[in-house]
């Protein structure tokens, strides 16, 4: 690839990005590496090998690079799916790096050796934006970023109807205890009385105070003689309406494994 700096840099970038995306634990670093590896470099290399020395003008080449990268991802999935190891981080990293390096090597062979002084001009040569233009584009980026941040922020929604949910599941496969949970999606803090009845006699009572978005859960043992089953009923009452059943969940332990 001597003399073809774009191909050399693409190959190096392909390998480095693949290694970073596959091995580095920090998501943000992996994103920075994976975006060019998936959305640009494979297409750039394939376009380079397809066109040899008669590549289209830069805007079309860039568009094709991204478009062909998307095609390579689509078809690459089918290739990886054939192998027993399948579609994984490592297999994607290896496949994309191999495509980039292999296609760059092929492109270098097709282009032939460059004569001294024949090297490409940088596409940004002569591009000198004014400070005003830079400031306006920077402001545009900041405003768009602010729009994205605003969109990701959950906001107070006073007119939305809140609710509280009660749930109950066995703690593990032995099914000799249950976990009973109360989740608040109410607009305001609320207090409840939780009653868990095991069989006909045993009852446990809990006072539950929850802020909006908060969840509390309780583990309740379900003792039972061998071979028998117990009916467990958890009932939730609002403290300001103690006579009115608010939520109820039930279970029969151990659970059946067949349909009725």
């Amino acid at each position, binding site marked *: 690839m001597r003399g073809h700096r774009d191909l050399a840099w693409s190959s190096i970038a392909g390998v480095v990005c693949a290694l970073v995306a596959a091995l580095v634990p920090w998501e943000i670093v992996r994103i920075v590496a994976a975006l060019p590896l998936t959305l640009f470099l494979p297409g750039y290399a394939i376009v380079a090998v397809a066109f040899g020395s008669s590549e289209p003008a830069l805007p079309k080449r860039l568009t094709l690079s991204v478009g062909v990268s*998307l095609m390579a991802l689509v078809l690459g999935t089918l290739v990886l799916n054939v192998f027993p190891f399948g579609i*994984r981080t490592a297999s994607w990293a290896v496949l994309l790096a191999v495509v980039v390096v292999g296609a760059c090597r092929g492109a270098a062979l097709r282009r032939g050796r460059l004569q001294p002084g024949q090297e490409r001009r940088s596409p940004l040569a002569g591009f000198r934006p004014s400070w005003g233009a830079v400031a306006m584009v920077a402001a545009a980026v900041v405003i768009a970023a602010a729009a994205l941040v605003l969109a990701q922020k959950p906001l107070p929604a006073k*007119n939305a109807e809140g609710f509280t949910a009660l749930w109950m599941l066995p703690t593990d496969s032995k099914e000799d205890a249950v976990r009973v949970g109360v989740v608040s999606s109410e607009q305001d803090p609320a207090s409840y009385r939780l009653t868990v009845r095991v069989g006909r006699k045993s009852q446990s009572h809990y006072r539950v105070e929850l802020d909006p978005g908060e969840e509390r859960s309780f583990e309740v043992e379900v003792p039972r003689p061998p071979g028998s089953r117990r009916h467990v009923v958890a009932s939730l009452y609002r403290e300001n309406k103690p006579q009115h059943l608010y939520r*109820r969940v039930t279970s029969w332990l151990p659970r059946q494994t067949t349909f*009725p």
Partner: protein
Amino acid sequence: MVSARPTTSKLDRLSFPLVALTASLGVFLCALTNALSRATLEPNSILYWIGLLIIAVPIFLRLSLKGPSYRERLGLVLLLGLALYLVKVTRDSIFFSFPDEFVHAFNAENIERYHHLYHFNPAITTTPRYPGLEGATSALMTLTGMSSFGAGTILVGTARLTFMAALFFLFARLSGSTRGAGLGVAAYVGSSNFLFWGAQFSYESLALPLMVVVLMAFVEREAEPPEVGSAWAVPLVLGILAVTVTHHLTSYGLAAIFILLAVLYRVMKVKKPNPWPFALLAALAALAWLLIAARSTVNYLSPVLTDAIKAIWKTATGESAPRTLFHQASNTTETVGATPFFARAVALFAILLLAIGFFLGLRQLWRRRRELEPLVLLFCVAGAAFFGALLLRFAPAAWETGNRAGEFLFIGLAFVFIFGAAELLRGGPGLQRRRLLLVAGLGIVLVGGAISGWPWDVQLARPLQAKAHGREIDSEPLALAEFARKRIDGSRFAAPEADARLLLTPGGQVAFGGQGPDIQDIVGSPELESWQLPLLKENHLPYVVADRRNSADDTLRGQYFTVPGQYGDKLQDRKLLHKFARIPAARVWDSGRIVLYDLKDRP
């Protein structure tokens, strides 16, 4: 034709950076209106439409000038595509929220989880058989650690920018004018599916851009000498194969385009190589994929198409009443927010403007009919067919087919529109006034397209998550999905459709809804009928969601918080919640309006 000679004008002061700045302000205004809507403050939606116009009008104006260079025009159409995509992204920026997005996100998560393709999807069984989008997304997910939402948003955004650039190059090559190409792309964003439907995380959102890249490669190949042109065969072939495994209808559409081109090349005796090899490849690839990997597509598409044909026939013969335009289908007695009269008028006026632009363009093209290329001829036919497809909106079961076809046919319409715009921008007295008329027309087309492309009452975001006392709270169906994700390990659910979609993702469960099998009637009827338990047993569905909300089956509106006064605040018969308790079966989760039953947990 529209030439791009530089000239000086007061409007030339509207530089690219300034246009970028106004576009970002428009995006922010749309995001702000959506934020107010999520906060249930019922903002005036006029703010949102102003936001859209602030994005688009300066770009349209700049594109209509002679001054901008080829690269600047490309930059402007990319800016337009990016800004309008951000409008969709900032509408629901926490989770996917469009009905099909849950389905495809579930597929992508399955690929990441199981490392192989084709895992079953209970919502749309055909989708795993066209794994292009999800496979590409899985590359980003596995290499970055991002969620399907993050990876999918980036991937569709990239595809959208590629679409804008490829459409610009395609139009520029065929029309011979970069100004015309820019205006053609500007017209395309007025397609009713552009703003929301085409921007969602769905297979067509990737397949359509790839199709346009293929068409661009084809016209570039035609324009180059043979020794250079052959290189364009690489993106052409790769693109045809990628479209084939990404989306059924797009692959059939692409095959049809190449077959028609091959026929036209022969009939018109074009002195260039006939594209029959590409037609053969596209047709064989689509057929082979259908027979080998995606046989279920026949069962998926045939009812939709036959119902559409029947509906057209019945409406045409007067056997059934035509569908009311702008009427939102609802399976309950509750009324869905109707589109206001003024908005309807804008949408219809946009169609009228498109028809005028098409007519003017067609007249221009007719004058040079002897030198027309086959693809240009095809675009003229597609443009005319667009108006024919609009008529399908009057047939109740065919409106969706017409709506979806519009996305493809609009490419032809936008191309012919270029020549109508050229007529309007021809030099002479009153040019400035005509330019402003064109820009205003494009603005109306954009807004009109957006109005007719998405139901009026869900144009703005609704609350899926909210904040109360400084902490995040989830909507009822989302809270159930989160509970299932944390506490129930990949089980099978029967649920109303809106709940089922959220149980797919973020819930991570295999959730059935709808009519295949007939879950809709099981979870939607207050009585437990004799066939219902056997059907649940047959399909191995131990968990059943009972949901009293009227919107529980509505995949556009059912996933959000209930807001009094908005559609979905009415409740169905209380018996609906308790019918499975009478079996009896265990109640696992109870949130008041929604109860989750475990049918295997019983006395």
